[in-house]
């Protein structure tokens, strides 16, 4: 049996499959369906300094092979996360990744400071939420801003900092390099691509927020290309996500240079998909005679 363990910035995950932020709450709901300690990690719902109610509904629209969402970072705030949600997750023998968002530099810094003495293993910094006017996306679209916010996050925490990048940029490798230059311990990508649907009868956008973030199988080739470009540019670990719906997609991400993957929208289609992806990767490695999942990371042979 191949060694499924992976290491992200000094943190060991028992396998490379993480459930993506915003699709898995704080773990409790899916724990009613399976043992969540079988996952490599859980990236928690995006958390801000104060409670946010989010956008009005509808917040979701189906698209060809995907979906748009415009939740707008609804969350109970970092103090409620620490008090009500983290103790449960911390007892589950799974790597806990807190996902942090903010609208100002001070908010990012203060939210991350409050996580400093917690059981959180990794802090994923969302500088890419497309659904909130000041939801961090402005921090994620220019290399200078990415480097500066990364430095700030690093300066207020000893925990591994993983910057979550937006695909809504011209050159992802420049953004990845800026995160690395700012001292990021890892990067994760991609967040959602901005999209829209219109109801032809009412002539209204389906989403009450008009636009939202596209995820699901439809974005997979775009995500894979960006992960490959980013992994070629930086030395820090890259966590790949965007449209993974089966184990083959996850293996493609690993071959492209991701050391681990996140699964998001596919949880809604099949609640057991993370477990199926873990099993599929394991079988693939055994069939190919690989000793460790880490051995295949970045081994794509480009033409």
């Amino acid at each position, binding site marked *: 049996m191949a060694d499924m363990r992976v290491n992200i910035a000094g943190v060991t995950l028992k396998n490379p499959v993480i459930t993506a932020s915003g699709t898995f709450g704080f773990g409790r*709901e899916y724990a009613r369906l399976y043992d969540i300690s079988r996952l490599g990690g859980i990236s928690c719902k995006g958390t801000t300094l104060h409670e946010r109610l989010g956008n009005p509904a509808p917040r979701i629209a189906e698209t060809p092979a995907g979906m748009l969402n415009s939740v707008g970072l609804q969350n109970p705030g970092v103090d409620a996360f620490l008090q009500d949600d983290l103790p449960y997750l911390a007892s589950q023998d799974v790597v806990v990744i807190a996902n942090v968002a903010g609208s100002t530099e001070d908010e990012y810094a203060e939210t991350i400071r409050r996580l400093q003495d917690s059981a959180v293993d990794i802090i994923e910094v969302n500088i890419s939420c497309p659904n909130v006017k000041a939801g961090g996306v402005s921090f994620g679209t220019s290399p200078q801003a990415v480097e500066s916010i990364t430095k700030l996050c690093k300066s207020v925490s000893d925990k591994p900092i993983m910057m979550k990048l937006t695909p809504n940029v011209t050159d992802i490798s420049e953004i990845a390099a800026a995160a690395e230059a700012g001292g990021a311990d890892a990067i994760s990508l991609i967040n959602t691509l901005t999209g829209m649907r219109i109801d032809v009868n009412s002539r209204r956008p389906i989403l009450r927020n008009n636009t939202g973030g596209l995820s699901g199988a439809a974005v997979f080739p775009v995500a894979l290309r960006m992960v490959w470009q980013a992994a070629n540019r930086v030395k820090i670990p890259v966590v790949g996500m965007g449209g993974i719906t089966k184990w083959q997609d996850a293996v493609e991400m690993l071959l492209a240079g991701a050391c681990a993957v996140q699964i998001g*929208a596919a949880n*809604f289609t099949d609640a057991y998909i993370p477990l199926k992806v873990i099993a599929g990767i394991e079988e693939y490695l055994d069939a190919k005679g690989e000793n460790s999942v880490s051995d295949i990371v970045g081994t794509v042979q480009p033409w």
Partner: protein
Amino acid sequence: MLQADFTIQRKDKLNATTYAFTVDCPKLAKESWCGRFVHIRCGEKPLRRPISICEIDKENGTLTLVFEVRGEGTEWLASRNEGDVINILGPLGNGFFPDPEKPAIFVGGGIGCPPMLGAAQDYGENAEAILGFRSEAQVILLDKFESACRRVAVTTDDGSFGTKGFVTDILKERLEALPDAVVYACGPMPMLKNVAALCKAKNVQCYVSLEQRMGCGVGACLVCACKTHDADGEHMRHVCKNGPVFDAREVDFNG
């Protein structure tokens, strides 16, 4: 709660666009009660479709699910036949808990009628139902409501069947006769808003089952938001986990 494949035992067409599937699913039936729902995978569609539970037969281990064809997902579902297998996640949501001590009026509008049948059956023979449809061609489940309830009134928008008008016209009369009744309702948002307003004016307890575009179905993704107000202030609740049934006094129907 579980996710698994179950076999369609029986398929009935209730009107031009509405189907009833009786599904052989003892494990789901065991955990089901009126007003809960299931989340069904529809072919290659990335999102499941939430369908409310109509009737529960715990003895035979079946659920009856009634749905309307509204788009490609439900069209795929309607093309399934007896003996076919469908993938179901459920049962989900909080459901109705009819108060046996008080008179009960079950109000359904269109495709909101199916969950009210299960609720009326659960309450027992003294149930009253008020059902609203656009026209005679849309009327569904009437015989079943008639055997479950002591009194059934039907309204149609065009008067082609029953009383011409809206369910609230009849509800207003019945609340005069039964001032201590509890109202349970499911249907289109404008209907629920009017039912809730009428009950509030009459100081009658009212529970509404809401519909919203849904993602995970289990309370993790937070897309099916519903604004509520209670003693603690304003909240964004979620139809899949906190609902689909809400105390009508707490729901912000304009939110």
